[in-house]
Protein backbone atom coordinates (compact mmCIF):
# COMPACT_ATOMS: atom_id res chain seq x y z
CA UNK A 1 0.00 0.00 0.00
CA UNK A 2 1.47 3.41 -0.97
CA UNK A 3 2.55 5.66 1.89
CA UNK A 4 0.03 8.34 0.98
CA UNK A 5 -2.87 5.91 1.20
CA UNK A 6 -1.66 4.67 4.56
CA UNK A 7 -1.36 8.21 5.90
CA UNK A 8 -4.82 9.11 4.58
CA UNK A 9 -6.23 5.97 6.10
CA UNK A 10 -4.89 6.65 9.57
CA UNK A 11 -5.82 10.34 9.34
CA UNK A 12 -9.39 9.54 8.42
CA UNK A 13 -9.72 7.21 11.37
CA UNK A 14 -9.89 4.04 9.38
CA UNK A 15 -11.88 2.16 11.94
CA UNK A 16 -14.77 4.57 11.43
CA UNK A 17 -14.41 5.12 7.67
CA UNK A 18 -15.94 1.82 6.61
CA UNK A 19 -19.25 2.57 8.32
CA UNK A 20 -19.35 5.99 6.63
CA UNK A 21 -18.81 4.53 3.18
CA UNK A 22 -21.49 1.92 3.75
CA UNK A 23 -23.90 4.74 4.59
CA UNK A 24 -22.94 6.43 1.34
CA UNK A 25 -23.66 3.25 -0.64
CA UNK A 26 -26.98 2.85 1.14
CA UNK A 27 -27.89 6.43 0.31
CA UNK A 28 -27.04 5.86 -3.38
CA UNK A 29 -29.37 2.86 -3.71
CA UNK A 30 -32.12 4.75 -1.89
CA UNK A 31 -31.81 7.78 -4.18
CA UNK A 32 -31.64 5.54 -7.28
CA UNK A 33 -34.79 3.76 -6.16
CA UNK A 34 -36.60 7.06 -5.51
CA UNK A 35 -35.52 8.78 -8.76
CA UNK A 36 -36.64 5.85 -10.93
CA UNK A 37 -39.74 5.25 -8.79
CA UNK A 38 -38.55 1.65 -8.53
CA UNK A 39 -39.48 -1.13 -6.13
CA UNK A 40 -35.92 -1.91 -5.12
CA UNK A 41 -32.31 -1.11 -5.85
CA UNK A 42 -29.12 -2.89 -4.87
CA UNK A 43 -25.34 -2.77 -5.17
CA UNK A 44 -23.12 -5.84 -5.49
CA UNK A 45 -19.46 -5.78 -4.65
CA UNK A 46 -17.14 -8.14 -6.49
CA UNK A 47 -15.18 -10.29 -4.03
CA UNK A 48 -12.18 -11.13 -6.20
CA UNK A 49 -10.71 -13.74 -3.88
CA UNK A 50 -13.90 -15.75 -3.62
CA UNK A 51 -14.85 -14.94 -7.25
CA UNK A 52 -18.36 -14.02 -6.09
CA UNK A 53 -20.72 -11.06 -6.02
CA UNK A 54 -21.82 -9.88 -2.56
CA UNK A 55 -24.90 -7.78 -1.74
CA UNK A 56 -23.41 -4.64 -0.19
CA UNK A 57 -26.42 -2.29 -0.09
CA UNK A 58 -30.14 -2.83 -0.71
CA UNK A 59 -33.07 -0.38 -0.72
CA UNK A 60 -36.71 -1.48 -0.84
CA UNK A 61 -37.75 -5.08 -1.39
CA UNK A 62 -35.31 -7.52 0.19
CA UNK A 63 -33.46 -4.84 2.15
CA UNK A 64 -33.57 -6.79 5.41
CA UNK A 65 -32.42 -10.18 4.25
CA UNK A 66 -30.06 -9.76 1.31
CA UNK A 67 -27.04 -7.88 2.68
CA UNK A 68 -24.02 -10.17 2.68
CA UNK A 69 -25.59 -12.82 0.44
CA UNK A 70 -23.39 -14.16 -2.32
CA UNK A 71 -23.85 -15.07 -5.99
CA UNK A 72 -21.67 -16.69 -8.67
CA UNK A 73 -19.71 -13.97 -10.45
CA UNK A 74 -20.24 -14.89 -14.09
CA UNK A 75 -23.74 -16.29 -14.51
CA UNK A 76 -27.14 -14.65 -14.55
CA UNK A 77 -27.79 -10.98 -15.36
CA UNK A 78 -25.44 -9.51 -12.75
CA UNK A 79 -22.64 -11.84 -13.84
CA UNK A 80 -23.09 -10.95 -17.50
CA UNK A 81 -23.01 -7.22 -16.71
CA UNK A 82 -19.91 -7.67 -14.54
CA UNK A 83 -17.94 -9.66 -17.10
CA UNK A 84 -18.98 -7.74 -20.23
CA UNK A 85 -18.88 -4.23 -18.70
CA UNK A 86 -22.14 -3.50 -20.52
CA UNK A 87 -25.35 -2.15 -18.98
CA UNK A 88 -28.53 -4.14 -19.56
CA UNK A 89 -32.21 -3.23 -19.22
CA UNK A 90 -34.94 -5.89 -19.34
CA UNK A 91 -38.70 -5.41 -19.16
CA UNK A 92 -41.77 -7.62 -19.50
CA UNK A 93 -39.74 -10.50 -18.18
CA UNK A 94 -41.56 -13.75 -18.81
CA UNK A 95 -41.61 -16.34 -16.06
CA UNK A 96 -39.19 -18.94 -17.30
CA UNK A 97 -38.40 -21.10 -14.24
CA UNK A 98 -34.62 -20.98 -14.67
CA UNK A 99 -34.57 -17.25 -15.29
CA UNK A 100 -36.95 -16.71 -12.36
CA UNK A 101 -34.65 -18.70 -10.09
CA UNK A 102 -31.57 -16.80 -11.29
CA UNK A 103 -33.08 -13.37 -10.81
CA UNK A 104 -34.73 -14.29 -7.51
CA UNK A 105 -31.29 -15.25 -6.22
CA UNK A 106 -29.98 -11.89 -7.40
CA UNK A 107 -32.88 -9.76 -6.18
CA UNK A 108 -34.76 -11.55 -3.39
CA UNK A 109 -37.90 -11.76 -5.53
CA UNK A 110 -38.86 -12.07 -9.21
CA UNK A 111 -39.18 -8.59 -10.73
CA UNK A 112 -41.02 -7.76 -13.95
CA UNK A 113 -38.25 -5.46 -15.05
CA UNK A 114 -34.65 -4.80 -14.14
CA UNK A 115 -31.79 -2.51 -15.01
CA UNK A 116 -28.20 -3.52 -14.29
CA UNK A 117 -25.07 -1.50 -14.86
CA UNK A 118 -21.39 -2.25 -14.18
CA UNK A 119 -19.54 -0.20 -11.56
CA UNK A 120 -16.32 0.82 -13.25
CA UNK A 121 -13.46 2.66 -11.66
CA UNK A 122 -10.49 3.29 -13.93
CA UNK A 123 -9.54 -0.14 -15.30
CA UNK A 124 -11.37 -2.08 -12.64
CA UNK A 125 -14.90 -3.40 -12.46
CA UNK A 126 -15.88 -3.22 -8.80
CA UNK A 127 -19.44 -4.50 -8.86
CA UNK A 128 -22.94 -4.06 -10.28
CA UNK A 129 -25.81 -1.65 -9.56
CA UNK A 130 -29.37 -2.93 -10.08
CA UNK A 131 -32.69 -1.06 -10.18
CA UNK A 132 -35.77 -3.29 -10.11
CA UNK A 133 -39.35 -2.77 -11.23
CA UNK A 134 -39.30 0.77 -12.51
CA UNK A 135 -42.93 1.61 -13.43
CA UNK A 136 -43.48 0.43 -17.02
CA UNK A 137 -46.19 2.90 -18.00
CA UNK A 138 -43.77 5.00 -19.99
CA UNK A 139 -41.37 3.89 -22.67
CA UNK A 140 -37.80 3.57 -21.52
CA UNK A 141 -35.48 6.23 -22.93
CA UNK A 142 -31.78 6.62 -23.57
CA UNK A 143 -31.71 9.57 -21.15
CA UNK A 144 -32.73 7.12 -18.39
CA UNK A 145 -29.87 4.92 -19.50
CA UNK A 146 -27.56 7.91 -19.07
CA UNK A 147 -29.04 8.59 -15.63
CA UNK A 148 -28.33 5.01 -14.67
CA UNK A 149 -24.74 5.54 -15.81
CA UNK A 150 -24.43 8.60 -13.57
CA UNK A 151 -25.61 6.64 -10.56
CA UNK A 152 -23.17 3.91 -11.49
CA UNK A 153 -20.29 6.40 -11.48
CA UNK A 154 -21.25 7.60 -8.03
CA UNK A 155 -21.66 4.08 -6.71
CA UNK A 156 -18.29 3.08 -8.19
CA UNK A 157 -16.57 5.93 -6.35
CA UNK A 158 -18.27 4.91 -3.09
CA UNK A 159 -17.31 1.25 -3.62
CA UNK A 160 -13.74 2.27 -4.34
CA UNK A 161 -13.61 4.24 -1.07
CA UNK A 162 -15.09 1.30 0.82
CA UNK A 163 -12.48 -1.00 -0.70
CA UNK A 164 -9.67 1.36 0.27
CA UNK A 165 -10.96 1.62 3.84
CA UNK A 166 -11.11 -2.15 4.14
CA UNK A 167 -7.64 -2.66 2.69
CA UNK A 168 -6.25 0.07 4.96
CA UNK A 169 -7.88 -1.56 7.97
CA UNK A 170 -6.41 -4.91 7.04
CA UNK A 171 -2.94 -3.37 6.77
CA UNK A 172 -3.30 -1.52 10.06
CA UNK A 173 -4.68 -4.53 11.88
CA UNK A 174 -1.81 -6.58 10.57
CA UNK A 175 0.81 -4.11 11.87
CA UNK A 176 0.93 -3.86 15.65
CA UNK A 177 2.55 -0.39 15.78
CA UNK A 178 0.11 1.13 13.29
CA UNK A 179 -2.70 -0.78 14.95
CA UNK A 180 -1.88 0.88 18.25
CA UNK A 181 -1.94 4.35 16.62
CA UNK A 182 -5.23 3.65 14.82
CA UNK A 183 -6.74 2.23 17.99
CA UNK A 184 -5.65 5.32 19.91
CA UNK A 185 -7.22 7.56 17.22
CA UNK A 186 -10.49 5.64 17.41
CA UNK A 187 -10.51 5.72 21.24
CA UNK A 188 -9.83 9.44 21.20
CA UNK A 189 -12.57 10.00 18.67
CA UNK A 190 -15.12 8.22 20.86
CA UNK A 191 -14.36 10.25 24.03
CA UNK A 192 -16.60 13.05 25.33
CA UNK A 193 -15.38 16.50 24.23
CA UNK A 194 -13.59 17.46 27.43
CA UNK A 195 -11.61 14.25 27.74
CA UNK A 196 -10.87 14.21 24.01
CA UNK A 197 -9.36 17.70 24.21
CA UNK A 198 -7.29 16.69 27.23
CA UNK A 199 -6.10 13.62 25.36
CA UNK A 200 -5.21 15.67 22.27
CA UNK A 201 -3.26 18.15 24.43
CA UNK A 202 -1.35 15.23 25.88
CA UNK A 203 -0.56 13.93 22.39
CA UNK A 204 0.66 17.36 21.28
CA UNK A 205 3.04 17.40 24.26
CA UNK A 206 4.16 13.86 23.44
CA UNK A 207 4.90 14.97 19.89
CA UNK A 208 7.04 17.83 21.31
CA UNK A 209 8.99 15.43 23.51
CA UNK A 210 9.54 12.82 20.77
CA UNK A 211 9.85 15.19 17.80
CA UNK A 212 13.12 16.64 16.44
Amino acid at each position, binding site marked *: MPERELRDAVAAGVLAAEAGHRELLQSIVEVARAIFGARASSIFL*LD*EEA*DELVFEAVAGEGAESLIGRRL*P*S*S*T*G*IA*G*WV*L*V*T*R*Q*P*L*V*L*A*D*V*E*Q*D*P*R*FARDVAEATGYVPKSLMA*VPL*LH*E*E*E*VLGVLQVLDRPQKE*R*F*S*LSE*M*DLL*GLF*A*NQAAIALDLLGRARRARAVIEGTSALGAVAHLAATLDALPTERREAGLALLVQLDHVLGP
Partner: protein
Amino acid sequence: MGAEHDEEELPAWSLPTSAVEGIAIPPTWPERVDREWAFGDSTGKRVRVAIVDSGVERGHPLVGEVEQAVVVSGAQGEEPTVDDDEQGDACGHGTACAGIVRSLAPECTLVSVRVLGSGWTGSGRLLVAGLRWAIEQGVEVVNMSLSTTKRELAAVLHELADTAYFNRTLLVASAHNMPVESFPWRFSSVLSVGSHELTDPLVYFYNPAPPVEFFARGLEVDVPWLGGTSVRSTGNSFATPHITGICALIRSKHPELTPFQVKSVLHLTANNIRGTHA
Protein backbone atom coordinates in the same frame (compact mmCIF):
# COMPACT_ATOMS: atom_id res chain seq x y z
CA MET B 1 -15.47 -17.05 -50.03
CA GLY B 2 -16.07 -16.13 -53.66
CA ALA B 3 -13.67 -13.18 -53.98
CA GLU B 4 -13.69 -11.69 -57.46
CA HIS B 5 -9.90 -11.64 -57.69
CA ASP B 6 -7.51 -14.51 -57.43
CA GLU B 7 -5.79 -13.34 -54.28
CA GLU B 8 -2.56 -15.18 -55.15
CA GLU B 9 -2.08 -12.93 -58.13
CA LEU B 10 -2.85 -9.67 -56.37
CA PRO B 11 0.02 -7.36 -55.51
CA ALA B 12 0.46 -7.47 -51.76
CA TRP B 13 3.13 -4.95 -50.82
CA SER B 14 3.49 -2.63 -53.81
CA LEU B 15 1.77 -1.92 -57.10
CA PRO B 16 3.83 -2.22 -60.29
CA THR B 17 2.23 -0.46 -63.27
CA SER B 18 1.74 -3.80 -64.99
CA ALA B 19 -0.53 -4.92 -62.16
CA VAL B 20 -2.85 -1.91 -62.14
CA GLU B 21 -5.31 -3.49 -64.53
CA GLY B 22 -5.54 -6.55 -62.33
CA ILE B 23 -6.99 -4.68 -59.40
CA ALA B 24 -9.67 -2.82 -61.34
CA ILE B 25 -12.91 -3.07 -59.36
CA PRO B 26 -15.45 -4.77 -61.64
CA PRO B 27 -18.13 -2.38 -62.92
CA THR B 28 -20.76 -4.05 -60.73
CA TRP B 29 -20.66 -1.15 -58.28
CA PRO B 30 -23.50 1.22 -59.04
CA GLU B 31 -22.87 4.93 -59.31
CA ARG B 32 -24.99 5.31 -56.25
CA VAL B 33 -24.74 2.57 -53.66
CA ASP B 34 -28.19 2.02 -52.20
CA ARG B 35 -29.76 -0.61 -49.99
CA GLU B 36 -31.25 -2.48 -52.89
CA TRP B 37 -27.78 -3.03 -54.29
CA ALA B 38 -26.22 -3.56 -50.86
CA PHE B 39 -28.54 -6.22 -49.44
CA GLY B 40 -31.81 -6.29 -51.38
CA ASP B 41 -33.22 -9.88 -51.40
CA SER B 42 -30.32 -11.10 -49.27
CA THR B 43 -31.06 -13.65 -46.55
CA GLY B 44 -27.58 -14.02 -45.10
CA LYS B 45 -27.08 -17.37 -46.83
CA ARG B 46 -23.54 -18.84 -46.70
CA VAL B 47 -22.46 -16.28 -44.09
CA ARG B 48 -21.26 -17.57 -40.73
CA VAL B 49 -21.93 -15.29 -37.76
CA ALA B 50 -20.18 -15.99 -34.45
CA ILE B 51 -21.91 -14.80 -31.28
CA VAL B 52 -19.17 -14.32 -28.66
CA ASP B 53 -21.30 -14.07 -25.53
CA SER B 54 -23.03 -16.12 -22.82
CA GLY B 55 -23.90 -19.01 -25.15
CA VAL B 56 -27.04 -19.58 -27.22
CA GLU B 57 -30.02 -21.65 -26.09
CA ARG B 58 -30.55 -24.63 -28.37
CA GLY B 59 -33.95 -25.02 -29.98
CA HIS B 60 -35.30 -21.56 -29.20
CA PRO B 61 -37.99 -20.95 -31.83
CA LEU B 62 -36.78 -17.37 -32.45
CA VAL B 63 -33.18 -18.48 -32.94
CA GLY B 64 -33.54 -21.68 -34.97
CA GLU B 65 -30.56 -23.83 -35.78
CA VAL B 66 -27.18 -23.16 -34.20
CA GLU B 67 -24.63 -24.90 -36.39
CA GLN B 68 -21.87 -25.07 -33.82
CA ALA B 69 -21.59 -24.17 -30.14
CA VAL B 70 -18.30 -24.04 -28.24
CA VAL B 71 -17.30 -22.98 -24.73
CA VAL B 72 -14.00 -21.36 -23.86
CA SER B 73 -12.72 -22.31 -20.41
CA GLY B 74 -9.53 -22.75 -18.42
CA ALA B 75 -8.30 -22.07 -14.92
CA GLN B 76 -6.05 -19.13 -14.15
CA GLY B 77 -2.54 -19.78 -15.40
CA GLU B 78 -3.67 -22.44 -17.87
CA GLU B 79 -4.04 -22.05 -21.59
CA PRO B 80 -7.78 -21.65 -22.35
CA THR B 81 -9.36 -24.55 -24.22
CA VAL B 82 -12.23 -24.55 -26.71
CA ASP B 83 -14.66 -27.47 -26.42
CA ASP B 84 -18.13 -28.35 -27.62
CA ASP B 85 -20.72 -26.59 -25.47
CA GLU B 86 -23.63 -28.61 -24.16
CA GLN B 87 -24.78 -26.09 -21.57
CA GLY B 88 -26.45 -23.49 -23.78
CA ASP B 89 -26.75 -20.02 -22.31
CA ALA B 90 -25.41 -18.85 -18.92
CA CYS B 91 -27.53 -15.70 -18.86
CA GLY B 92 -29.95 -15.22 -21.77
CA HIS B 93 -28.02 -12.45 -23.48
CA GLY B 94 -26.31 -14.55 -26.15
CA THR B 95 -29.67 -16.06 -27.11
CA ALA B 96 -31.07 -12.52 -27.45
CA CYS B 97 -28.23 -11.45 -29.76
CA ALA B 98 -28.56 -14.61 -31.86
CA GLY B 99 -32.31 -13.95 -32.18
CA ILE B 100 -31.77 -10.40 -33.43
CA VAL B 101 -29.23 -11.57 -36.03
CA ARG B 102 -31.59 -14.37 -37.10
CA SER B 103 -34.52 -11.95 -37.49
CA LEU B 104 -32.51 -9.86 -39.96
CA ALA B 105 -30.54 -12.61 -41.71
CA PRO B 106 -32.84 -15.67 -41.57
CA GLU B 107 -30.55 -17.97 -43.57
CA CYS B 108 -27.21 -17.10 -41.98
CA THR B 109 -25.25 -19.78 -40.12
CA LEU B 110 -24.96 -19.17 -36.38
CA VAL B 111 -21.95 -20.19 -34.29
CA SER B 112 -22.08 -19.74 -30.51
CA VAL B 113 -18.82 -19.00 -28.68
CA ARG B 114 -19.50 -19.02 -24.95
CA VAL B 115 -16.97 -17.03 -22.94
CA LEU B 116 -19.09 -16.63 -19.81
CA GLY B 117 -19.99 -18.85 -16.91
CA SER B 118 -16.53 -20.01 -15.82
CA GLY B 119 -16.08 -17.35 -13.13
CA TRP B 120 -15.12 -13.70 -13.26
CA THR B 121 -11.42 -14.27 -12.64
CA GLY B 122 -9.66 -14.64 -15.96
CA SER B 123 -12.80 -13.84 -17.92
CA GLY B 124 -10.87 -11.26 -19.99
CA ARG B 125 -8.49 -14.01 -21.06
CA LEU B 126 -11.40 -16.24 -22.11
CA LEU B 127 -12.91 -13.39 -24.08
CA VAL B 128 -9.64 -12.97 -26.00
CA ALA B 129 -9.36 -16.74 -26.57
CA GLY B 130 -12.96 -16.91 -27.81
CA LEU B 131 -12.44 -14.07 -30.23
CA ARG B 132 -9.20 -15.64 -31.49
CA TRP B 133 -10.96 -18.94 -32.09
CA ALA B 134 -13.74 -17.25 -34.07
CA ILE B 135 -11.22 -15.40 -36.25
CA GLU B 136 -9.24 -18.61 -36.84
CA GLN B 137 -12.43 -20.30 -38.07
CA GLY B 138 -12.68 -17.58 -40.72
CA VAL B 139 -16.27 -16.66 -39.86
CA GLU B 140 -17.53 -13.72 -41.89
CA VAL B 141 -18.98 -11.69 -38.99
CA VAL B 142 -18.39 -11.71 -35.21
CA ASN B 143 -20.87 -10.15 -32.80
CA MET B 144 -19.23 -8.87 -29.62
CA SER B 145 -21.74 -7.26 -27.30
CA LEU B 146 -19.05 -7.01 -24.68
CA SER B 147 -15.86 -5.21 -23.79
CA THR B 148 -13.01 -5.13 -21.31
CA THR B 149 -11.50 -2.20 -19.43
CA LYS B 150 -8.20 -4.04 -18.79
CA ARG B 151 -5.37 -2.11 -20.46
CA GLU B 152 -3.16 -5.20 -20.42
CA LEU B 153 -5.59 -6.86 -22.86
CA ALA B 154 -5.78 -3.86 -25.20
CA ALA B 155 -2.64 -4.76 -27.19
CA VAL B 156 -3.63 -8.37 -27.87
CA LEU B 157 -7.20 -7.36 -28.73
CA HIS B 158 -5.83 -4.71 -31.09
CA GLU B 159 -3.72 -7.32 -32.87
CA LEU B 160 -6.70 -9.66 -33.14
CA ALA B 161 -8.91 -6.87 -34.49
CA ASP B 162 -6.36 -6.09 -37.18
CA THR B 163 -5.90 -9.78 -38.02
CA ALA B 164 -9.67 -10.06 -38.44
CA TYR B 165 -9.78 -6.92 -40.55
CA PHE B 166 -7.18 -8.20 -43.01
CA ASN B 167 -8.67 -11.72 -43.06
CA ARG B 168 -12.11 -10.39 -44.03
CA THR B 169 -13.73 -11.14 -40.69
CA LEU B 170 -15.92 -8.25 -39.58
CA LEU B 171 -15.87 -7.53 -35.86
CA VAL B 172 -18.99 -5.74 -34.70
CA ALA B 173 -18.67 -4.52 -31.09
CA SER B 174 -20.81 -2.65 -28.57
CA ALA B 175 -19.68 0.83 -27.65
CA HIS B 176 -19.87 2.06 -24.07
CA ASN B 177 -22.54 4.57 -23.20
CA MET B 178 -20.46 5.65 -20.23
CA PRO B 179 -17.28 7.71 -20.38
CA VAL B 180 -14.86 4.83 -19.82
CA GLU B 181 -11.93 3.50 -21.83
CA SER B 182 -12.80 0.02 -22.97
CA PHE B 183 -11.93 -2.36 -25.80
CA PRO B 184 -12.22 -3.62 -28.53
CA TRP B 185 -14.94 -1.25 -29.74
CA ARG B 186 -12.62 1.79 -29.77
CA PHE B 187 -10.32 0.29 -32.41
CA SER B 188 -10.79 1.65 -35.92
CA SER B 189 -10.60 -1.83 -37.45
CA VAL B 190 -13.81 -2.72 -35.57
CA LEU B 191 -17.37 -1.65 -36.34
CA SER B 192 -18.59 0.03 -33.16
CA VAL B 193 -22.27 0.41 -32.36
CA GLY B 194 -24.36 2.58 -30.06
CA SER B 195 -28.16 2.92 -29.71
CA HIS B 196 -30.82 5.15 -31.21
CA GLU B 197 -34.40 5.39 -29.93
CA LEU B 198 -36.32 4.46 -33.09
CA THR B 199 -38.16 1.17 -33.52
CA ASP B 200 -37.29 0.18 -37.10
CA PRO B 201 -34.64 -2.58 -37.05
CA LEU B 202 -33.35 -1.43 -40.44
CA VAL B 203 -32.77 2.19 -39.42
CA TYR B 204 -29.10 2.88 -38.79
CA PHE B 205 -27.06 6.04 -38.69
CA TYR B 206 -23.44 6.81 -39.41
CA ASN B 207 -21.88 8.92 -36.67
CA PRO B 208 -19.74 11.71 -38.14
CA ALA B 209 -18.14 12.16 -34.71
CA PRO B 210 -16.57 8.76 -33.85
CA PRO B 211 -15.27 6.73 -31.96
CA VAL B 212 -18.82 5.28 -31.97
CA GLU B 213 -19.29 4.73 -35.72
CA PHE B 214 -22.88 3.57 -36.12
CA PHE B 215 -26.16 3.83 -34.20
CA ALA B 216 -28.76 1.08 -34.49
CA ARG B 217 -31.95 0.01 -32.73
CA GLY B 218 -31.14 -0.60 -29.06
CA LEU B 219 -34.22 0.54 -27.17
CA GLU B 220 -37.02 -1.78 -26.05
CA VAL B 221 -36.23 -4.56 -28.49
CA ASP B 222 -38.26 -7.76 -28.14
CA VAL B 223 -35.74 -10.59 -28.04
CA PRO B 224 -35.65 -14.33 -27.28
CA TRP B 225 -34.56 -15.25 -23.77
CA LEU B 226 -34.04 -18.39 -21.68
CA GLY B 227 -36.51 -21.26 -21.69
CA GLY B 228 -38.08 -20.38 -25.04
CA THR B 229 -39.39 -17.10 -23.64
CA SER B 230 -38.80 -13.54 -24.76
CA VAL B 231 -38.12 -10.24 -23.07
CA ARG B 232 -38.08 -6.53 -23.93
CA SER B 233 -34.52 -5.30 -23.74
CA THR B 234 -32.48 -2.10 -23.97
CA GLY B 235 -28.77 -1.45 -24.37
CA ASN B 236 -25.99 -1.04 -26.91
CA SER B 237 -25.48 -4.76 -26.61
CA PHE B 238 -28.78 -5.19 -28.51
CA ALA B 239 -27.99 -2.45 -31.06
CA THR B 240 -24.83 -4.36 -32.00
CA PRO B 241 -26.51 -7.52 -33.38
CA HIS B 242 -28.69 -5.31 -35.60
CA ILE B 243 -25.56 -4.08 -37.39
CA THR B 244 -24.18 -7.64 -37.30
CA GLY B 245 -27.33 -8.91 -39.07
CA ILE B 246 -27.14 -6.19 -41.72
CA CYS B 247 -23.43 -6.97 -42.27
CA ALA B 248 -24.39 -10.64 -42.75
CA LEU B 249 -26.87 -9.59 -45.45
CA ILE B 250 -24.27 -7.45 -47.23
CA ARG B 251 -21.58 -10.13 -47.04
CA SER B 252 -23.98 -12.76 -48.31
CA LYS B 253 -24.80 -10.71 -51.39
CA HIS B 254 -21.28 -9.36 -51.88
CA PRO B 255 -18.81 -11.90 -50.48
CA GLU B 256 -15.90 -10.15 -52.18
CA LEU B 257 -16.15 -7.02 -50.06
CA THR B 258 -13.42 -6.31 -47.52
CA PRO B 259 -14.32 -4.99 -44.04
CA PHE B 260 -13.31 -1.51 -45.22
CA GLN B 261 -15.74 -1.77 -48.13
CA VAL B 262 -18.55 -3.13 -45.94
CA LYS B 263 -18.06 -0.16 -43.64
CA SER B 264 -18.23 2.14 -46.66
CA VAL B 265 -21.43 0.46 -47.83
CA LEU B 266 -22.96 0.88 -44.37
CA HIS B 267 -21.93 4.52 -44.42
CA LEU B 268 -23.39 5.13 -47.88
CA THR B 269 -26.68 3.44 -46.99
CA ALA B 270 -27.10 4.93 -43.50
CA ASN B 271 -30.33 6.82 -42.88
CA ASN B 272 -28.59 10.11 -42.28
CA ILE B 273 -26.54 9.85 -45.50
CA ARG B 274 -28.84 8.84 -48.32
CA GLY B 275 -30.81 6.02 -46.84
CA THR B 276 -34.11 5.07 -48.29
CA HIS B 277 -35.83 4.30 -44.98
CA ALA B 278 -35.37 7.63 -43.21
